[in-house]
């Protein structure tokens, strides 16, 4: 029988930004100390990139970096769940499916990996949690109690975000053990309401997205992420065309959120963040861009990788916000027009433009 020691390392990466609140309560209730890797920094990105194969996306490179960072923290176990599917009909990308194997195959001198499969196609979430509890040698009763508390906490956490808190703030509330906190509806003065849509690990990791949310807040933009949208919109599976159902896990959420925003139109613009060489994202980027164009909702896709120049991203975002603000307030150049026409202007009424 393995004697479970207390320290379990969780990389602050990938689905940490989605399921950490759940596993946090669950593991803590089972009497485990959680050790998180540091927030993403340039050292983590460097060492992660060194270990990972070149073709892989930046979030996965970061994952290796976070694992290596944890190895310096004297942990007894490493927590690497194998996420296969969390909603019926959708699957995560293959890199999530093989994550424990990839970590094991890449990095030497690892502590034992706590590996369990989350696959809603095969078994409900509580059975996955049960398996995890059994790995930790806990009794069924202990596991049941811990899981109930974890689910309660997770729901509370999600509700906090629906009520408008950011991931970081909601996590702070969860850490404070106060379960009666109600975010106040602040009436803030903003110039535009912009949704930042993307995988949680791109949107909430301020290093990888170059502090985008803060930058937008400084420009007086009211930022909405997909977790801030009502929970019920994620319940039904999205249909891309009449015949084609989406089957990617993360993209499912993104499409649901964007479709909701397209329907309600309660948004001034949408910024989609995706990582370079993410296959599913590159497809839905195009789908969303086309739909946004039809609905005349400003949309911009930002592709991030470890080489991204900050200047280009900032210029794009600033111009995007300015464009929205000017459009919203209908700011045109009001000075008197030049009397002399300058240059020859092709005054055809027909729209004869070339399309690319």
């Amino acid at each position: 029988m393995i004697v479970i020691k207390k320290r379990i390392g969780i990389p602050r990466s990938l689905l940490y930004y989605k399921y950490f609140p759940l596993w946090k309560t669950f593991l803590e209730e089972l009497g485990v100390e959680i050790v998180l890797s540091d927030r993403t920094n340039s050292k983590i990105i460097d060492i992660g990139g060194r270990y990972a194969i070149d073709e892989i996306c930046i979030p996965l490179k970061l994952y290796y970096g976070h694992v290596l960072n944890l190895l310096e923290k004297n942990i007894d176990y490493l927590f690497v769940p194998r996420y296969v599917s969390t909603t019926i009909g959708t699957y995560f990308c293959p890199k999530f499916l093989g994550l424990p194997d990839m970590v094991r195959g890449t990095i030497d001198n690892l502590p034992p990996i706590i590996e369990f499969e989350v696959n809603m196609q095969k078994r409900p979430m509580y059975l996955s949690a049960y398996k995890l509890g059994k790995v930790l040698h806990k009794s069924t009763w202990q596991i049941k109690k811990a899981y109930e508390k974890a689910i309660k906490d997770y729901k509370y956490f999600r509700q906090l975000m629906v009520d408008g808190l950011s991931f970081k703030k909601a996590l702070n509330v969860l850490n404070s053990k106060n379960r009666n906190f109600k975010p106040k509806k602040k009436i803030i003065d903003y110039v535009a309401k912009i949704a930042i849509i993307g995988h949680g690990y791109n949107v909430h990791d301020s290093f990888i997205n170059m502090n985008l949310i803060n930058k937008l807040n400084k420009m007086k933009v009211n930022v909405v992420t997909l977790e801030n949208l009502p929970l019920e919109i994620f319940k039904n599976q999205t249909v891309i065309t009449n015949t084609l159902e989406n089957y990617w896990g993360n993209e499912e959420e993104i499409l649901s959120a964007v479709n909701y925003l397209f329907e309600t139109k309660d948004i001034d613009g949408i910024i989609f963040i995706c990582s370079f060489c993410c296959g599913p994202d590159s497809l839905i980027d195009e789908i969303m861009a086309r739909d946004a164009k039809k609905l005349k909702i400003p949309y911009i896709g930002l592709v991030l990788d470890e080489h991204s120049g900050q200047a280009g991203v900032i210029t794009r975002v600033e111009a995007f916000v300015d464009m929205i603000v000017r459009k919203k307030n209908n700011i045109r150049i009001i000075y008197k027009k030049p009397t002399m026409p300058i240059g020859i202007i092709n005054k055809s009424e027909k729209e004869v433009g070339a399309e690319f």
Partner: protein
Amino acid sequence: MVMAENREAEIDKNDNLYLGIDVGSVSTKFAIINDNMELIYSTWARSHGSPIKSVQDGFKEMQNDFIDYESQIRAVGTTGSARYLTKALVGGDIAKTEIIAHAVAASYFVPGVRTILEIGGQDSKVILLENGIITDFAMNSICAAGTGSFLDHQAHRLGIPIEEFGDYAKRSKTDVVIAGRCTVFAESDMIHKQQMGHSKEDIIWGLCNSLVRNYLNNVCKGKKLLPPITFQGGVAANDGIRRAFEKHLGQKIIVHKNFLTMGAIGAAMLAREYIEINNIKTKFKGFNVGEMKFTPKAFNCTDCPNQCEITYVEQDDGTIIARWGDRCGKWTL
């Protein structure tokens, strides 16, 4: 070194003046406009590496002519990739992106403009407008093919001045296809075509076509380019590229006479708008900015593993006028 100066209107003692400065990767542009949108002064010069020096040189050029009218400057706007640095140096009122600046100026000078093709030293952009409002834009992301720097480099390699690029392209008799996917391959393909015996003229015209193709396929992907179309930024000086655009788009491409300084004019217009809407006074330091001493300095912050490189600019009196480069924001001024 001033390369292009332009004065269209005389200055009047009662005029309100608006100064716009556009500091890009390759060149520095200044423009002064008055209330009637007349161009009092505009200039374009190569940056030669240091944006601080370029801005100061520009002010030294202006100082003699405009020092007496300093109090008439009502607003100063900056744009271009060095907009924040320039704003801090001169005491600018706003710093806006080139995209907005170009669009604003073009929508005034080319009434009804629907499409702006803007190709500068290191980026290329397309801006779409409708009734004077920007509806969409795009910017080159992972590829800098077809921007001014590449053309400069190729002109140098072929041993002809960049100013004559357009004339060479015009003299071409045959179409030569140059691989335009990537500048590195474009260059090796050009060398190959030279070795095959094609003339310089044909190769240059082929290069213009391949750059335009690349721009249209990458930057303008998914966009509908409606006329009137204007072409702005430094590369618009190249008539070969303009003609290649006309060939590929089947449209008249307008190159306004202020195409080089459009960004600076736009920045001046935006500064005016900002001052008027908010009803405030300009923070402009004056034309003696050229005489002041600015020292750029840098250090590595060691407070966390990010080890950000912090840069800052010190004015001669020791005050720090700009500081940035940190990810966390604690140094940013």
